[in-house]
């Protein structure tokens, strides 16, 4: 299986994503520059965190028009696995690949700490190695992670089981997001965006290894699609 990690000017979690793929599942992974015009070689695309284009205008606003984004849209249409983390999530919403938007944290602060997440949907290609309702420990690091969508969109997200992660526990929402949403998928389930950073939780030395299973989930889903031996 082959992964691409997209690199925009200002991305800063690209190395973490690359290493996470190498260290958790040992699959092929390439950095792909934002000017690339062909992603057909890749089975999964990671849109990493950071401050693409300095977050100028809005987070992800300018990155959505980088040349590589046309290819990310094509890959999404082709059913490839696409995971946007933090700024990557903001870019995917700006590009219209995921519904809603990320607003400034309600408390106005940049929040950077471990956060318990509830796995709300373990039926996705990104979460099949977790149990339904499992609480996992994943760090966040963002100033604009306050997920918002209108009532109609929220009803669709709930009806289609598109809410993948919520911030778990009472009074534990770090950013004011609607319904404690931390991560969502598109309707088809092959595109996921999340504010927390699973790539920063792949070893106990980092404080948690609960993020590992997102990567094993993706590999597992790909192998199931391709009839290869499933990684148990």
């Amino acid at each position, binding site marked *: 299986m082959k992964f691409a990690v997209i690199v925009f000017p200002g991305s800063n979690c690209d190395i973490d994503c690359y290493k996470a793929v190498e260290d958790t599942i040992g699959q092929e992974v390439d950095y792909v520059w934002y000017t690339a015009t062909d992603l057909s070689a890749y089975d999964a695309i990671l849109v990493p965190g950071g401050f693409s284009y300095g977050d100028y*205008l809005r987070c992800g606003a300018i990155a959505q028009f980088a040349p590589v984004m046309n290819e990310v849209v094509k890959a999404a249409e082709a059913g490839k696995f696409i995971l946007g983390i933090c700024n990557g999530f903001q870019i995917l919403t700006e590009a219209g690949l995921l*519904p809603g*938007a990320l607003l*400034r944290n309600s408390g106005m602060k940049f929040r950077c700490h471990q956060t318990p997440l509830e796995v709300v949907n373990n039926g996705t290609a990104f979460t099949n190695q977790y149990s339904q309702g499992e609480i996992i420990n994943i760090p966040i690091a963002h100033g604009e992670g306050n997920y*918002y969508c209108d009532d109609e969109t929220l009803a669709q997200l709930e009806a289609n089981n598109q809410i993948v992660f919520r911030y778990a526990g009472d009074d534990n929402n770090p950013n004011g997001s609607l319904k404690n949403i931390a991560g969502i998928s598109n309707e088809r389930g092959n595109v996921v965006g999340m504010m927390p950073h699973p790539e920063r939780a792949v070893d106990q030395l980092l404080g948690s290894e609960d993020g590992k299973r997102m990567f094993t989930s993706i590999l597992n889903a790909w192998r199931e699609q391709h009839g290869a031996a499933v990684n148990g």
Partner: protein
Amino acid sequence: MKAKVYVTIKENVLDPQGSAVQGALHTMGFEEVGKVRIGKYMELNLDTSDRAEAEARVTAMCEKLLANTVVEDFRFELEG
């Protein structure tokens, strides 16, 4: 021609910056301040003299890039 573009968070969407500034103004003794909304102001110099065309083009710019219409409203004025 010049376009002056104003982008603000939609009325029904929480504006955390506006709420924080409102709180600060109250603390400072400006109790008369109600809701505060914070937005962006942009000036674009346009190489055209065709007002109708400019209006259509700036609307497209706002919808595509300058505002995120999921959470923001925009309006603009054309001068010159």
